[in-house]
């Protein structure tokens, strides 16, 4: 456990710092799509669920894993889809002008 804990904390600290720096610079214009894309990214938890299903160590873990894959996948698909739809709507007036 020891060093993997510390390594995890290192990654958490660094990624958290990046999160703060990057997100506070996102234009308020895009805060709604931001919420939906972070949602989709967070659903990367699906990889943990896939491994759980794949390991198939007990019936319980298998079933829970399948449900988890379904829940996460719907977030991935739905999240990217709606973010894309939103962003498609954002148009600048500049290219429209001749």
């Amino acid at each position, binding site marked *: 456990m020891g060093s993997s804990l510390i390594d995890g904390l290192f990654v958490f600290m660094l990624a958290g710092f990046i999160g703060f720096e990057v997100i506070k610079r996102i234009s308020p214009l895009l805060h709604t799509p931001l*919420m939906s894309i972070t949602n989709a990214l967070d659903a990367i938890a699906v990889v943990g669920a896939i491994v759980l299903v794949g390991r198939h160590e007990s019936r319980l*873990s298998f079933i829970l894993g399948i449900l988890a*894959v379904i829940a996460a996948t719907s977030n991935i698909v739905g999240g990217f889809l709606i973010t894309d739809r939103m962003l498609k709507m954002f148009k600048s007036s500049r290219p429209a002008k001749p």
Partner: protein
Amino acid sequence: MIEFLGSQNFIGIIYLVASALFILALKWMNRPATARRGIFAGETGMVLAIGGTLLQLGVDGKLQHLAIDYTWVFIALGIGTAVGIPLGLVQMTAVPQRTALSHAFGAFCVTLVGTAEFYLRTPNVRPFMMSVLCCEVILGGLTVTGSLMAAGKLQEVLPQRPITYKGQNVVNLGLLAVAIGIAGYLVHNPGATHLYPVMVGIALLFGVMLVIPIGGADMPTVISLLNSYAGLSAAAMGFVLGNKLLIVAGALDGSSGFILSVIMSKAMNRSFTNVVFGAFGQVAPAAAGAQEARPVKSASPEEAAGILAAASKVVIVPGYGMAVAQAQHKVRELYDSLTKRGIDVQFAIHPVAGRMPGHMNVLLAEADVPYDHLKEMDDINGDFPQTDVSLIIGANDVTNPAAKTDKSSPIYGMPVLDVERSHTVMVIKRSMNPGFAGIDNPLYYMDQTLMLFGDAKAFVSNIVKELSNSHG
């Protein structure tokens, strides 16, 4: 490739690349010009990570019933996609509840995986691992039910009004304390499996209780906070599984939710501790009783059209009422017809106009208003003195000058749009009823202000009609 690197390193490098892509995805989201590239980066990272995981599973030979398990994974992915597509196609006005729902789904996944890991590992769980695991399922559990409640309230399936009772805070904190207490016990007695469901149950209950006292309008802040919790629980899951990609994604999501709730609470003039501790009291209805009927001037669509047509610079201030009335497309028509007459039209977007961060921007973008005409508060506040007409469409609190002058006002200190500096102010709303903060708006009684009573969509469409008649 996999053989060469060793499957552990192979998947590690895949996850590393996916993490980098996720970070770039958020970095590119910072402005519209690069945002779609951001989605692409995010999607690529996701496909890589899932593909890599599936591949590694096969190579590792950990699949005990290879074919069957693969089949099930693909079935689950298929069902998830089938559920996800409609969730990605909802109306823009339903985005708040959709967001809440997806937090519930994300947290559900995390809680399930945590639970499975608990039963697989117990009783051989080291104290640190157990505490992270409990952290994961408690945060995950309360996010599941809290988000479902929030979604229900926003969708108006559940009653919107806050349900409060005496000692509510004590009960809630008590519940949380019990859950944490059980977690502490489990850390030292990892074999006490019978306590585990109790802990999860309490976390689920706590999520419900947390959101019960919160009114529908305060929901966005709660949703952001739940977003942050969902991220943290995913990061905890990363610790449990030793998966750095999950830690990165969780940390990014956690800080995103946190920052958005801070921005919202600042723009709403709420103290930040209020937000962090989830103690969303309702704003006291400020002296609403002693309201004398003061005179206001009102105007008809024809008059409004005339005034607009005579202006050379117009600023439109959209608010929650525009969203409710679904008036954005009509507003776009108004924008077009004014622009065609050579009038300079800008939109002033207050950071918490509407009910969700960025709410107005998405709606107006949906109606094809070019985003370079959507101005942030700080960029446009200096322009109001040179503005002929400020047209306020279903906004209220974000234009309330009392926030600048009246120290006794509950929104005193909240930054607002300086609309009262413009030559003429026109306000479209249905009545003299207050907005979200429940307080009166002195703007309506000022000399330069005209009230345009009516539904936002209907009224704007009448103005547009008048404008095109007078033109043709």
